[in-house]
């Protein structure tokens, strides 16, 4: 058991400090930013509800089209069609996300916390078994519940990696950024490709959040949510008499 998982109460039910204060604060700021960015992003998408690959827009052959209206009003911020206000929300929370994400990533990398998320060789071999256990909604107990399983590790790493790429794709839509860093355009193969990648990565993160929330609910919602607010996570011992 690591130092961070400090033992607070030795009993059949132990409570450990699972998440650091910094992780908890970053998590909730990120959650607020994510929903503000997602909904204002859908508002911005609705101004031209189609995607293309390449440098320019082929209005006759879109890759994906949700014409004429795009996403429904309840999913957009603001609710009414208002591109100007949608952009205000998007860029404000984009800055907040970048600052918050930099703090989180700095903590993760500089303090070596990423090791908890990095899958080992044996982890990768256990992927099929982990899938079976998840499918049966069988969740580990005891100390094992503190360790991230291989599917969690891959999902978290995927989400953490998606954010910087998503931000880069977003910046590639900025004509000023493209002038300052022309390689951005080449990285994505064009401004419209970057717009499509931005959308696809956002869709991936939506899928991540859906699965994440489902897992929170299925594996003990109160314990999970309390641990992300206070840091305290309750462990149920397996085959251990109090």
């Amino acid at each position: 058991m690591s130092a961070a998982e400090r033992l607070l109460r030795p009993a059949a039910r132990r409570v450990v400090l699972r998440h650091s204060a910094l992780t908890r604060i970053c998590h909730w700021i990120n959650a607020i930013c994510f929903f503000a960015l997602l909904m204002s992003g859908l508002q911005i998408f609705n101004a031209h509800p189609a995607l293309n690959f390449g440098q320019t827009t082929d209005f006759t052959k879109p890759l994906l089209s949700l014409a004429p209206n795009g996403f429904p009003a309840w999913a957009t911020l603001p609710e009414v069609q208002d591109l100007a206000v949608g952009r205000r929300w998007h860029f404000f929370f984009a800055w907040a996300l970048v600052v918050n994400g930099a703090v989180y990533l700095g903590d993760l990398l500089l303090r070596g916390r990423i090791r908890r998320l990095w899958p080992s060789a044996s982890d990768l071999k256990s992927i099929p078994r982990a899938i079976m256990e998840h499918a049966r909604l069988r969740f580990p107990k005891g100390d094992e519940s503190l360790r991230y399983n291989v599917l969690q590790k891959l999902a978290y790493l995927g989400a953490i990696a998606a954010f910087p790429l998503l931000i880069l794709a977003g910046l590639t839509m900025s004509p000023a950024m493209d002038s300052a860093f022309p390689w951005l355009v080449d990285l994505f193969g064009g401004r419209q490709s970057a717009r499509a990648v931005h959308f696809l990565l956002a869709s991936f993160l939506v899928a991540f959040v859906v699965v994440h929330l489902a897992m929170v609910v299925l594996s003990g919602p109160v314990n999970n949510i309390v641990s992300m607010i206070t840091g305290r996570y309750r462990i149920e011992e397996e085959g251990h008499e109090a």
Partner: protein
Amino acid sequence: MKRETKLTRRETLLKLIAGGGALSLAGCGLDARSPAALAVLETAEALTRTVQRALLAPRQALAREYRPEDISSYFRPNGSTAPDDPNYQDALAANFADWRLEVGGLVENELKLSLADLRALPSRTQITRHDCVEGWSCIAEWKGARLASVLAAARPKPAARFIALYCADTLEQSLDGDGQYYETIDLVDAAHPQTILAYEMNGAPLPVEHGAPLRLRVERQLGYKMAKYVMRIEAIDSFAALGRGRGGFWEDRGYEWYAGI
């Protein structure tokens, strides 16, 4: 003892309900378009402008220029596509033979330039990508007089801080002339080598739907900055007195004055 527990529980429950109510009230009552919310959100624009200007400054970065084969076969015209102003219609009927671009405001030397005068000034031809705030992009070749050359001839006074462009088109009909298109850019963009007053598009005179006879190109910003049907240019020290005071037709309707993103 038991009563106390009950009370505590009831209190907790009430607190939870009140808390939940407050949260959902905030959720429903929060007006995403309220002036108070926008005042906070708009602080991000200054941050974006400062950072992007700092990134662009060291190399006086140019916008990417494309190859002739990259030119879009269809370039979507946006905003006004046929100004109904009678003076404009008359000038168009005469193929802009008697049309003059007025240059005034805080300048030493007011100018009236014909299309031939503009063509005689140092020009620049560039194949660039036009990014609309809506999200789409098209590529075209533009040829025009460098705005810096026009301003050099007009000699702005030291007090000049912005260049205002007044246009012939009205996007919104209103009694007070509020719907007239105009734009402002600062001297950083006005001096940029790719900032031109374009009179040609893809090797032909600028078509009416793209702003004939003259449109602005500010390549490192979004399309709405690139005013079409430019009739008059002024050097000004502040745009507070123009339109609704936010520096442009779309800026007056909530869009950012700095449109680099």
